[in-house]
C-alpha cells in the first residue's frame, strides 16, 4: 500500500511539472500583455510594470524563478489583474467553490443514482425510458440556459429565495442544482450500466433464492458493485465541480474560483493562471487517487494478485 501511494505521489509530481511547463509557455504564447487596457499606457509605465513583476527577465529565468518561489517562499506570485497574492485569491475563493461543488455533487448523486438504479431495475419499461429522458434533459440544456430559467421562474416567485448572491444557506440551492445537473445525467447513465452489469451476475440469483426481498437485493447486494463505474467517473468530475464554473458563478453571483480561471486568461494574468492550473492539477491528481482508493474499498477483490493457475 505504501509503495502504491509513493508511486502515485511521484506520478502526481510529474503531472504537475508537465502541467506547469505547458501552461507557462501557452500563457506566454497569448497575444497581449498583463497591463493591456482600454486607455493606453506610456512606454515608461510599461517598462516600470514589467520590471516590477520581473517580466523583463529572459524567459528561461522567469520559467525557473516561479517554481523556485513556490518551493522556497511558498509564494505563487502576485496577480497582475487583482493586485493581491495569488494564494490569497485562491484561499478566499476556493472554499466557496468547494461548498458549491459538494452540494452539486450531492444533487448529482441524489438525483443521478436513484434514477440510474430505477431505470436499471425496470429495464425497457416506460419508467426506464422516462428516467433516461430526464437524464438527457440534464445533458441537453446548457447551464447558461438553466440558470436564468431557474432565476426567473423559481427564485423570483419564492420569497425566501434570492435571484443571486451568496451568504446565507438558501443561496447555495439554485447554483449547485444547475452545476450538478449535468453530472447527475452522466451518473444516471453510468449507474444504470453498472447495475445492469451486476444484475446479470449469478450471486444476485443466489440472493433471490435465499428469499431476499427485491428491494433489499438491490440495496444490499447490487448497489455496491453497481456503483463502481460511477465512482471511476466521479474522480475527475468532482475535481471539475469544486474548481468552480465560470457560467454558474457569474449567473448566480457566487464568489468562487471558476471565474478567476477565465479572468486570469483574458487579463493575461500569468501568475494567477499558473497558480490556478497547478491547484486544479493537484485536485485532479488527488481526486483520481481517492477514486481508486474508494474503488479498492468498495470492491475487496481489487488486489494486485496475478492470476494463479
Amino acid at each position: 500500500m505504501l509503495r502504491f501511494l509513493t508511486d502515485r505521489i511521484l506520478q502526481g509530481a510529474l503531472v504537475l511539472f508537465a502541467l506547469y511547463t505547458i501552461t507557462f509557455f501557452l500563457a506566454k504564447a497569448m497575444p497581449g500583455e498583463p497591463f493591456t487596457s482600454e486607455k493606453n499606457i506610456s512606454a515608461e509605465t510599461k517598462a516600470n510594470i514589467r520590471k516590477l513583476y520581473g517580466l523583463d527577465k529572459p524567459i528561461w529565468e522567469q520559467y525557473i524563478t516561479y517554481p523556485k518561489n513556490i518551493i522556497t517562499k511558498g509564494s505563487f506570485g502576485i496577480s497582475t489583474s487583482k493586485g493581491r497574492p495569488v494564494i490569497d485569491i485562491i484561499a478566499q475563493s476556493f472554499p466557496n467553490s468547494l461548498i458549491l461543488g459538494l452540494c452539486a455533487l450531492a444533487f448529482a448523486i441524489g438525483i443521478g443514482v436513484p434514477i440510474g438504479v430505477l431505470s436499471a431495475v425496470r429495464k425497457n419499461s416506460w419508467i426506464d425510458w422516462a428516467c433516461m429522458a430526464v437524464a438527457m434533459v440534464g445533458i441537453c440544456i446548457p447551464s447558461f440556459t438553466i440558470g436564468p430559467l431557474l432565476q426567473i421562474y423559481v427564485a423570483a416567485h419564492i420569497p425566501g429565495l434570492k435571484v443571486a448572491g451568496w451568504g446565507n444557506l438558501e443561496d447555495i440551492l439554485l447554483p449547485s442544482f444547475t452545476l450538478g445537473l449535468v453530472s447527475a445525467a452522466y451518473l444516471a447513465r453510468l449507474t444504470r450500466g453498472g447495475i445492469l452489469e451486476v444484475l446479470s451476475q449469478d450471486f444476485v440469483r443466489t440472493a433471490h433464492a435465499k428469499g431476499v426481498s427485491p428491494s433489499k437485493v438491490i440495496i444490499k447486494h447490487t448497489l455496491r458493485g453497481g456503483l463502481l463505474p460511477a465512482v471511476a467517473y466521479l474522480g475527475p468530475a468532482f475535481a471539475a465541480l469544486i474548481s468552480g464554473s465560470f457560467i454558474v458563478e457569474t449567473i448566480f453571483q457566487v464568489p468562487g474560483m471558476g471565474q478567476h480561471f477565465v479572468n486570469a486568461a483574458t487579463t493575461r494574468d500569468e501568475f494567477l493562471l499558473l497558480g490556478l492550473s497547478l491547484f486544479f492539477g493537484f485536485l485532479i491528481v488527488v481526486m483520481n487517487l481517492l477514486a481508486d482508493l474508494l474503488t479498492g474499498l468498495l470492491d475487496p477483490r481489487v488486489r494486485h494478485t496475478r492470476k494463479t493457475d
Partner: protein
Amino acid sequence: MSLLKIKNLKTYFHTRAGTNRAVDDISFSINKGEIVGVVGESGSGKSVTCHTMLGLLPQPPAKVEGGSVTFDGEELINLPHSLLRQIRGKRISMIFQDPMSCLNPYLKILDQVTEPILIHENVSRNKAETRAIEMMKKVGIRDAESRAHSYPHEFSGGMRQRVMIAMALVTKPDLLLADEPTTALDVTVQARILKILSDLKDDLGIAVLFVTHDLGVVADIADRVVVMYRGKIVEQGKTRDIFEKPSHPYVKGLLACRPTLETQYQILPTVEDFLQTQVEKDGSIMLSECPDANKRLAELKSETKYNNPSGDTSNVLLQVKKLTVHFQTGGNFLGKPPKIVKAVDGVDLQIQSGQTLGLVGESGCGKTTLGRAILKLQNTKSGSILYDGNELSNLSQADMLHFRKRMQIIFQDPYASLNPRQTIEQTLVEPMLVHRIGSNHSERKDRIVSLLEEVGLGAEFLLRYPHEFSGGQRQRISVARALAVEPEFIVCDECVSAMDVSIQAQVLNLLRELQQKRNLTYLFISHDLSVVKFMSDDMMVMKNGEVMENGKAEDVYKNPQSEYTRELLEAIPKATLSGENSSF
C-alpha cells in the same frame, strides 16, 4: 406421502428466434429424506425445472405454460411473490454450480450466511451468527470463527461450495435443490462435498433434488434417478435399475460413451451409435434405437490402440528440464505483504513425436501454467525448453514467430477462445496470412473448407459468427484454427472439461483421428483422470507445481506409486453400485 409432486410441467422460452420448449410436460416426485438425481445434458431442461419451482426465471422470456408443482400440499406455480419468498430459503433452499460467482464478492462470508436466518426468523443478530458459524463447522470449514470474517475471493472453490451449503441449510429447509453443485470442482473435493451432503441429509432428514450431467456422481449419491433429454423425461426409476438395465437408447448411449478407467476402446462409442432422432412436422422429436447398436459396440472394442508402442526414445520432440514459474500475488490493499507462489517448481518432461503425454492434477497444481510456459505465453523464472533441439526459453518475440507456427494450443472455454466479431472464415484465414500459408486467396479458401470438413463442420458455416454455434462446434473451430498453421505439437488445455459427455466423446475421437492422420504430438491437460487415461500414452500427475508420478498410462492406473495418485483414483465416482467391474 411425497414431499414434492410435479405434474405435466411445461416451461417455454419465447425469444425472438421462436419458442424454445425448455421443459415439455414432465412429471416426477420426491419423498421426504430421499435424494433424487436428475441427469441430462446441457439444454435438457434439468436446471430450468429447479428454477421454475422457485420462480427464479425472468418472466418476459420464460413462461410456465401448464402443469403443477405442489410442495407439502401447497401449489407453487402461481403463488404470489410475497408468499413464494417465504418458502425460498426457508422451506426450499437452492445451491448453484459455479462457486466462484455465486457468492457476493463485496460482503463478508458471515453476513451472507446469516442473511437467510435474519430474513425468515426474528432472531437476534449474534444468535444468528453463532448458528451460522456452527453450521459452517458442520459442513467442514476449519476454524470457522476467524475465517467467517474474510471475503469470498479468499476462499478456494471447494470451501466456497461448503459456504453455499451452509447458507442453504442454516434455516433447516425440507428440500434442497442442488443444481450441478460439484461440476466445477476437482474430483477429490467433489467426493468430500458429496459425503457432506449425504451426511447432512441423514441427520437433518432433508430431501435433495440433485441435478447433474455426470452419471458417476448420480450413481454414488442418488436413491432414484430421472433422465431428461430435450425437455422430456426419457426414463426414471431406481438407480440400480437405470444403471444395470437401461431401457431407453439415449440412456444406453450416455452410459457407453463415458470413458472409464477400464475402457480399452480406441474410439469411444457416441450417443449417435445408439439413438436416432427424427424431427416431426410439428417440431416434436421422435427417438428410436439404432438397429445395429450392439454390432457397432463389438466392432469398436476390437480395434487396437493406434500409437506404436513407445519404447524407442529416438525422436524426442519436446524436452523440458527443471522448468520453474513463480507468481507474485500482491499483498492486499491495506498492507498485507505480497507472497511468492511457486506455480511450476523444477518440472522435467519429454514427449516423443506422435505420442500424447497426459498431464493430470487438481486445480491449482500448475498444469495449465506449465502448458502456457512451454508455449512462452507465460514467462518462466528458470529451466530450459528444448523443442526439436532448439532452446526456446531465451528467444525474442520475432525469433519465436517461426516456432509459433509449429506449436499450437486449444483452450478450455469454447465461448471465450474465439473472437466474437470475426466470421469463421476470417478466424481461419488470418493465421494463414500471418504465416504466409497458401499462395492466393482461392487456394487458402479451399484449405479452409477442407479444414472444416476435417473437423466435422460443413462449408456453409464460413460466414457465420461464433455466437451462432454450440459449445462443441466452437471447439471444433478452435481445433481447425490450430490446424490452419499445420503445427506438429498441440497443447490441449482442458479442452473437453466444459462439455457434455456426449460431445466430449466426439471431440476426443476427433483429436485421436487427427493425431493419427497428421502424426501430431499432444500435451493433454485435464483434471479428469479417466479422460486423460483414455487419450494418453504416458501420464504425469502433478500437485503444487511438482511431478508426483510419471509413467505409462496403464502402469499409473494399475499400480500407482505415489499415495496422492491412489487418493485421486479412489475419489473417482464408480459407474457401478457394487464396486465390481461394469459390463462395458
